């Protein structure tokens, strides 16, 4: 980061920071206004999934520092009491002392509002009568709510968007987003923007046609739908028949054969995948959503879906008012490794310009010009890569990263002062095997098998990586015992918080990566933390409930840590 950019950030920080949104603009336990959401970056509350519209997961709070973080102690342990068969992946939203937590969906979606000023008392508990869903490929979960205008918005596993009264937890309206029987499920935290609520869909493992939708925030009426898989009338999903990634990596495609097969598979786009797993980033100034888009369907068998399969594996900019695309950047055209774009994008300022940052399952961080979608740079690999883009075969092809990445759905965090992006990453060697299968509605449709490799050759672990966004170089890298699944949060106090599958919740020095503190939570910490201020004290909250897919120990508690009095 250049000298003046850095000082510019510091000045902006000092002008905006430090007080919670409710002291700048009262929200009470009631409404969170559009103005408060637009200023969330400077708020001591945690007002949305990614802390602020730029999805930076960067709290401006400075009470907890590298010097005192070692003193953190649990202040609350909020046991939700739900069955423990899912992944507990929520990031709590905290508004003026009220914490909104979603649970794993076992079997129902649940939202609990806790009054932290009153000892963590449950203010209300909403339980959605979730239809039985057998199309949650990687285990039932939910990643959080949106709060705005007196309502709490929840996406449900059975494909609904629900608005709850923020004071009582009573349903105000319910809108159907997608058909769960066909594989459309909701696990992401919605995003509230002005008079609308934005939500995508999971389901790329079931042959869905992915989308992002906008609903009227007050009524639930649908406003627009952006399909991540363009129809032939919209330009088709064939793309430019790219032989390489945009950065020049050979994808080993037989373009002539694909073109020859294109008529035979002309309708493949209708079940082309492209799920949107995570909450988009949003730039209010340009009214632009930045969305990460998942894999094509079926995952590994590209022979039955010729073309680039746009916009799968892409980062796409969408006008929030119209739902129209502004630009798209496909990190891997015609992906046959499930190395898709899942981790939510974040917006940063680099060299005086806005840039979109995405950590790929490919193992690279992509930095794109927010206005044009042009690549500014691709980082060094943040996980081991081996035999990259070798084609899967029926016998199996070993390639790294494995199909979980790289970076899975794990949200990244940005420290704007250092210009670093922090990534929680996985190392899972796998053999990629193709296996032809016809599409069947509601059935898992991978066209493949991902086979774990036994013995030392298949040893798995994780990393916490810091990437200098100005150079693309690894600033530091720390190895963890297990693959990392959960996400990262950073603070102006110079701390990076993240958790591990073995139950440890860790604080890293933002600049050096030194582990400064850790706490054993007793269940996998596989969720992204929230940092917030309550009256005069700073807290960090994280769900410790494990991960179903990776068999990390399950639990049901949210831990809230603070400094001793």
């Amino acid at each position, binding site marked *: 980061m250049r000298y003046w950019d850095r000082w510019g950030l510091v000045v902006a920080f000092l002008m905006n920071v430090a007080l919670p949104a409710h002291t700048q603009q009262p929200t009470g336990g009631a409404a969170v206004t559009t103005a408060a959401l637009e200023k969330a970056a400077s708020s001591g509350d945690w007002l949305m999934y990614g802390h602020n519209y730029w999805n930076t997961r960067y709290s401006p709070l400075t009470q907890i520092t590298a010097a005192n973080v070692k003193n953190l102690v649990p202040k609350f342990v909020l046991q939700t009491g739900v069955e423990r068969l899912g992944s507990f992946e929520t990031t709590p939203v905290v508004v003026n002392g009220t914490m909104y937590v979603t649970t794993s969906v076992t079997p129902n979606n649940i939202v609990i509002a806790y009054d932290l000023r009153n000892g963590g008392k449950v203010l209300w508990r909403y339980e959605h009568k979730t239809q039985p869903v*057998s199309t949650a490929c990687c285990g039932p979960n939910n990643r959080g709510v949106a709060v705005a205008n007196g309502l709490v918005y929840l996406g449900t596993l059975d494909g609904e968007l629900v608005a709850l009264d923020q004071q009582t937890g009573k349903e105000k309206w319910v809108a159907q987003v997608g058909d769960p029987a066909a594989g459309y499920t909701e696990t992401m935290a919605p995003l509230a923007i002005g008079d609308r609520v934005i939500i995508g869909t999971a389901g790329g493992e079931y042959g869905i046609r992915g989308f992002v939708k906008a609903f009227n925030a007050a009524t639930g009426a649908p406003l627009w739908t952006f399909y991540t898989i363009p129809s032939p009338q919209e330009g088709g999903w064939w793309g430019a028949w790219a032989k390489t990634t945009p950065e020049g990596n050979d994808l080993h495609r037989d373009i002539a054969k694909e073109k020859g097969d294109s008529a035979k598979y002309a309708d493949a786009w209708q079940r082309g995948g492209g799920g949107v797993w995570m909450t988009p980033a949003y730039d209010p100034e340009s009214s632009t959503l930045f969305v990460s888009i998942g894999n094509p369907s079926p995952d590994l068998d590209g022979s039955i879906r010729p073309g680039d399969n746009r916009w799968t594996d892409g980062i796409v900019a969408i006008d929030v008012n119209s739902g129209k695309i502004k630009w798209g950047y496909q990190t891997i055209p015609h992906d046959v490794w499930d190395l898709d774009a899942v981790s939510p994008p974040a917006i940063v300022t680099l060299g005086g310009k806005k840039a979109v940052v995405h950590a790929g399952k490919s193992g690279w961080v992509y930095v794109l010009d927010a206005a044009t979608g042009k690549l500014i740079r691709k980082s060094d690999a943040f996980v081991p890569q081996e035999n990259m883009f070798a084609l899967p075969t029926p016998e199996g092809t070993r390639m790294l990263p494995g199909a979980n990445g790289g970076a899975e759905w794990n949200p990244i965090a940005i420290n704007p002062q250092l210009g670093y992006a922090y990534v929680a990453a996985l190392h899972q060697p796998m053999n990629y095997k193709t*296996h*032809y*299968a016809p599409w069947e509605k509601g*059935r898992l449709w991978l066209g493949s098998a*991902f086979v774990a490799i036994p013995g030392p050759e298949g040893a798995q672990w994780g990393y916490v990586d810091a990437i200098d966004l100005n150079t693309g170089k690894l600033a530091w890298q720390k190895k963890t015992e297990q693959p990392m699944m959960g996400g990262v949060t950073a603070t102006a106090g110079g701390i990076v918080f993240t958790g591990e599958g073995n139950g440890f919740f860790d604080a890293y020095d933002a600049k050096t990566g030194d582990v400064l503190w850790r706490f054993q939570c007793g269940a996998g910490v596989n969720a992204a933390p929230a940092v917030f201020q309550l009256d005069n004290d700073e807290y960090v909250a994280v769900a410790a409930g494990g991960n179903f897919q990776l068999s990390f120990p399950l639990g049901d508690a949210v831990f809230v840590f603070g400094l001793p009095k």
Partner: protein
Amino acid sequence: MGRSQVQRVLLSTIFAAVATQARAQARADSGAAGGGQQVDSTWLKVEHKKKAVTVRFELIAGLTGLNGALNFNGFRDGGLTLTVPQGSTVIMHFHNNDGMLPHSAEVIADQTPVPDGPVAPVFARAFTVRLAEGLPPQGDDTLKFVPDRIGSYLIICAVPGHGKQGMWIRMAVADKAAKPAIAVTPPPHS
């Protein structure tokens, strides 16, 4: 019944048998069409000691990519049947070959629809540990039980959603004189 009539019946019986076999094979190949999973005789071993029969069976979750790896030994939706004699000792070695998802196994009563999660096993200890959570990739467990009732049963993955998604095969308990066998079988509703 005249000779020609006998021939017709015989021929129709043969055709029916061939058709049934063809349907079974087509089903085994389908879902995965092209997968064409064959029964591997090494999955089954039988030991006779005096009058006691021990049946050893390798139960492999996610052996192939069929059904997104939601299969046992490359078969789904009841496409494979393990036949064991009543009163034998069945030792079923479970291995999760799927690199992405946890899986489990249990023997349950024949039922439609297949349950969406764990139910009571039909024979004592006829289940893997972590039935609902499943065992991770490369995870192993052994089911050892005595099938003491003749009948038709299911071997399902009890991780929620997996059985319902087709991750189940069949187990038949035949009379004590029956020879243990594994065979491709037609699904129950085709």
